[in-house]
Each structure stands twice: as C-alpha cells, then as structure tokens.
C-alpha cells in the first residue's frame, strides 16, 4: 500500500500529540520503526519495480517504478540516520520532539512527492517537504539557523512561484496537470515559444530547488546553519527529492529530452561540478564544505541526465542509470558525512576544521567511515560512488561529449583534493591537547555511520548484479 507511506507519518504526528506523556517517549522508536517499514516496503517492490508494480488503490496507481522505489529506499535510509542523529544531538526533549514531528511531516511530503504523477500535487508535496525543512532549520531559533531558513524560504518560494507559473501556462494549453496529458500535449507543439517558456520556468524552479549553480545561493547557508539532524535530512534527501528527483522525473516523463534541455543540463551540471568543488576547496567550516560538495555532486547527476536523449541509445540508458545511481549513492554518502560531522561537532563542540585534528585516534569509527564516504564521493573503486561516476562518464563519452567526460574526471581530482584536506585537518595529523579526552560519540551516531558505510561498500560490490536488474531498466519505462 503506497498511500500508507504518506498516511502513516500523518497519523503518527496526530497520535503522538495526544496529551499523553508516555506517547512522547514512543516518538523516536515509532519514527525508526516507520523508517524500517518503508525501507522493507521499498526493497520488496524494488525487484518487481522494473516493470512497474501494479498498485490498486485510490491515490497512487501504478507508481512504483524503479526510480520511485529507489527514492523511497533512500528516503527511508536517510530518515533512519537523521532520527538517530536527532536522538544523539537534540538539546532537550522538547526540541527533539518538535523536530521529530517535522521530520515525519517532511518524510510524508517526500514520499508523496516521489509517488505523484500530477504537476500540481507535485507542487503540494514539494511545499510540505520544504516548509518542514525551513522549520527544521529554524527550530533552534539561533541566528545562523534563522538566517539559513530565511534564505532558503525566499529562494524556495521564488522557485515554487516559477513552477506554479509554469503549471498555469501548461494548464491553459493542455487543460490538465496530469503528467501523461501534459506530456502528450507538449508532444504536439513542443517547440512553440509559449510552451518552451513554461518548461523553462519549471526547470528554473527545479534548478533552484536542487541547488545548481547559479541557482544555489541558499544551499550552503541552509545546510551549514541547520541543526545536525536537520542538515542530515536536508542534505541527505530533501534537496535530492524536491530538486533532483523531480528534475529527472519531469525531463524524462513530461518535458521530454529535447536537445536544448540536454544542453542546458550539461552546462549547468558542468558549472556546478566545477564551482562547487572550487568553493569546497577553500572552506574551513566542515558542514559548509560538505554543502558545496553536494552542489558539485548534483552537477554530476545533471551531467548524467544531460545525455538522456542522446542518439546513442546505450549512452542514454547509461546516463540516466548513472544519474539515478549517483542520486542514491550521494544520498547515502552525504548522509554518512553529515552524521560524522554531527559526531565531530557533538564531541568537540566545533566545526572549524582549523581547530580540529587527529580525531581518528579518538574516534576511529567516525574517522574510518568518513574516509570510506570520501573515497566513495571521489570515486575510488570498488565503492558505490565509483560505479555511478563511471557510468556517467562512460555515458558522456559514448554520447560524444568528450569534453564533459574529461571535465568530470578532472573534477574528481578536485573532489579528492578537498576531501583529503578535510580528512587531514579533521581526522589525521596531531591531536590537539584540548581534545585529548574526546571519545566516540555513542551508538546513536556510530550505528548509522556503520550502516551507511556498509551500504556503500555493499552496493559497490553488488554492482554487477544491480546494473542489469535495476539500473539500466530505469530508462525503460
């Protein structure tokens, strides 16, 4: 029952807020349980999802294709990690409880978002996830959080306005907001300026939401300023769902991979890859570095998506498969890195990398898993990130876009450079005397770290199996 994935969090929020004290204590286990349920559900429909799992119900009919199922799985995993981080870092019970409710709402929004097939419903669920995210960022009412939330809110409102304008224009033309109807209508006069304006407006909105250069201004501020649990959820999955997933879905299903769209995706993708990596290189705030790294990695996803309409069918298939795979991988390793950042911040009280150092001795699990995540991000075999980057770069090369392929490889070096600098400044080197008594951050942070690291390694090793059964069919619907 896919609709349960939206209704259960809603019911949970309603139930947990009944004026009964013991219910509050059940909140975190309930949220974890829900995450596990969702993960199991997604895993169960994943194998059947290749052809599209038929679902007979009122709201979500036949929506469980591979792309949606993969996103559902990623949402569940990131939510699990975020709830764990919340448990470890919440300043007091009240804050923790508030944040948990908002997380449940955000997850309900994202679950709906990946399952709807209607432009306007998409907007609604997008807005649910976004509003919950603003509130999660601002929840502590500290200055940084408020600033980040305000910037995010304004840019996000701008983005939704663009999307709504596009929906209005398309409504006037096609008389509907359903993906299928709009896609057919666009097919008839796809090259008319009016419709292209509509598409452009929607793309612009999505590019803001995904934080692609030059639409990205809000992203580093929001990521860096948010409380640990919120930034885990936000960086791990919210922007991936609201921006990147939607972009993939709409470009594939509704707007169609026109030549101009592809070129735009490639240009913005390349710009993001380079600018994100360059900006990350000079950061001293750990979370801000990770935020810029996110921009850079989203650029890779866009590059992969940019060949989705290539004349070389195999390249197109590889590109989309790579984009979706990288989306999933990025959700995993970025979550892992944010969990570790939360552990470091919790144990040392700072995120300034110039003041850290040598923590790998004291926090071996955190150091090791972030090394893994870093290798995965930079694309070191056989971790998951290597394969997805390989797919993307291979697709670019096959499609004849050699320049972009070379750029992708070169930017990998930059990725490695800024992550090595991070690893060196935080985990290696000399341990500062004030951190002599730092210890590992406790199970609530190490368990999700280890889990996510295991997923990274496992997915990387299982690639030969994954690629035939899940990844390549993504393009096939």
């Amino acid at each position, binding site marked *: 029952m896919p609709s349960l994935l*939206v*209704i259960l969090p*809603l019911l949970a*929020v*309603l139930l947990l807020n009944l004026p009964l004290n013991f219910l509050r204590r059940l909140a975190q286990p309930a949220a974890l349980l829900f995450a596990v349920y969702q993960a199991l559900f997604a895993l169960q429909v994943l194998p059947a999802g290749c052809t599209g799992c038929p679902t007979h119900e*009122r*709201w979500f009919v036949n929506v469980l294709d591979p792309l949606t199922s993969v996103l559902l799985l990623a949402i569940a995993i990131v939510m699990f990690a975020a709830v764990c981080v919340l448990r470890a870092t919440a300043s007091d019970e009240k804050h923790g409880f*508030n944040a948990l*409710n*908002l997380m449940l*709402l955000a997850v*309900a*929004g994202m679950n*709906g978002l990946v399952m*709807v097939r*209607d432009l*306007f*419903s998409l907007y*609604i*669920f997008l*807005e*649910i996830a976004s*509003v*919950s995210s*603003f*509130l999660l960022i*601002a*929840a502590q*009412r500290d200055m940084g959080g408020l600033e980040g939330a305000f910037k995010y809110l304004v840019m996000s409102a701008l983005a939704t306005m663009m999307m709504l304008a596009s929906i209005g224009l398309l409504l006037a*033309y*096609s*008389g*509907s907001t359903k993906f299928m*109807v709009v896609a057919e*209508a666009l097919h*008839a*006069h796809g090259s*008319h*300026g*009016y*419709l292209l304006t509509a598409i452009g407006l929607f793309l612009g909105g999505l590019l803001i939401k995904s934080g692609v250069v030059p639409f990205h201004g809000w992203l580093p501020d929001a990521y860096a300023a948010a409380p640990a649990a919120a930034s885990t959820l936000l960086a791990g999955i919210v922007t991936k769902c609201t921006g990147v997933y939607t972009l993939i879905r709409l470009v594939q299903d509704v707007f169609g991979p026109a030549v101009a769209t592809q070129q735009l995706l490639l240009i913005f993708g390349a710009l993001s890859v380079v600018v994100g990596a360059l900006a990350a290189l000079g950061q001293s705030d750990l979370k801000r570095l990770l935020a810029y790294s996110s921009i850079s990695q989203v650029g890779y996803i866009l590059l992969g998506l940019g060949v989705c309409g290539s004349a070389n069918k195999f390249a197109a298939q590889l590109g989309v498969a790579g984009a979706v795979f990288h989306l999933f991988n990025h959700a995993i390793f970025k979550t892992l890195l944010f969990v570790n950042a939360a552990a470091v911040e919790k144990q040392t009280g700072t995120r300034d990398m110039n003041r850290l150092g040598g923590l790998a001795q004291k926090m071996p699990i955190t150091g090791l898993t972030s090394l893994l995540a870093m290798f995965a991000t930079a694309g070191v075999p056989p971790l998951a990130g290597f394969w997805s980057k390989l797919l993307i770069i291979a697709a670019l090369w096959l499609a004849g876009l050699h320049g972009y392929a070379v750029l992708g490889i070169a930017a990998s070096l930059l990725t490695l450079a800024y992550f090595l600098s991070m690893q060196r400044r935080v985990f290696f080197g000399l341990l500062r005397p004030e951190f002599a008594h730092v210890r590992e951050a406790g199970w609530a942070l190490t368990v999700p770290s280890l889990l996510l690291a295991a997923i990274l390694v496992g997915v990387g090793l299982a690639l030969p199996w994954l690629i035939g059964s899940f990844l390549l069919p993504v393009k096939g619907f």
Partner: protein
Amino acid sequence: MDPNYKIALLENIILMAAMLLGTLATAMLRQFIKAAIALAFTSVVLCILMFKLAAPWAAVFELSVCAGLITVVFISAVSLVRPATEEERAAHVRFKVRRYFLLPVVLLAVGCGLSYMPVRPLPLLATTELVTDMRALLWGPRALDLLGQILVLLAGVWGVVILFKEET
C-alpha cells in the same frame, strides 16, 4: 471577434490595471501598514476578477483568506516588530524612493516587449475530459490535494508552535 468578448476583456483589463496599481502601491508605499492594506486591496480586485472569470469558490477563498487572514498576519507581525524599527525605517526612507526609480522603466520595457513580441499562433487543444463540478473534483481525482493540505496545515501548526511559543 465577438463584441461581448471584447467588452468582457476591456472590463478584465481595467480590473487587472487596478491590480497592477495595487501591487505598485504595495511595493512602494512608505508605511508598511499601508503597503499591507494595498496588498489586501490587490486581493480584493483579484477576487472580483475571479468572479468575472466564473471562479466563485476561489474568489470567496481569496477574499476571506488572502485579503483577510494574510493582512492580519502582516499587520500583527509588523506590530510585533514595530517599536525598535521606527528610527531605522526613517533612515531608509531617503533613498528608498530612489531605489524604485527604475521600476517604471522596467515595467514599460517588459510591457512593450511582450506586446510587440511576434508569437506564432498556438492552437487550443480540445479538452478530453471536462469536469465542471468542483466538489466532485475535489473529493474525487484531487483528493490527494486535500491530504496534502492537511499535511501542510500540520506543518504550519508546528511552525507556530516552534517559532512563536515563548521559551520557558
């Protein structure tokens, strides 16, 4: 062209011009309260326009919620922050008008540009399914939107709880 349509169009254009004036007033009025009231005025004109375009439900909603509730939100917000900002506001006034000098130029450029832009004709698609009963639509195919509304409202409630509740 149908003369009735032309008259209706003229009325609509007059209304939209009023709306545009309302937005300009919202943007440029010095006092915030007045700006908020100008926004409410814009909403009222939009409401009339909706009535004319045969959207009574939306019009009622626009009138009650946007013209009413949102104005209240703004006014109460500004009353919450007013005391300390009067001086600052005064300091801004001097160059504030100057900042809006460019707006008429931009508006003129955009308006002219759009009016004289050559656009190929685009045929209207024959709509396949025409649903006229709004309630049937809202409870039928678009029931998902209602679920979404509930979720958004819940998020809003949490927003109020988190942001407005005094720290104890």
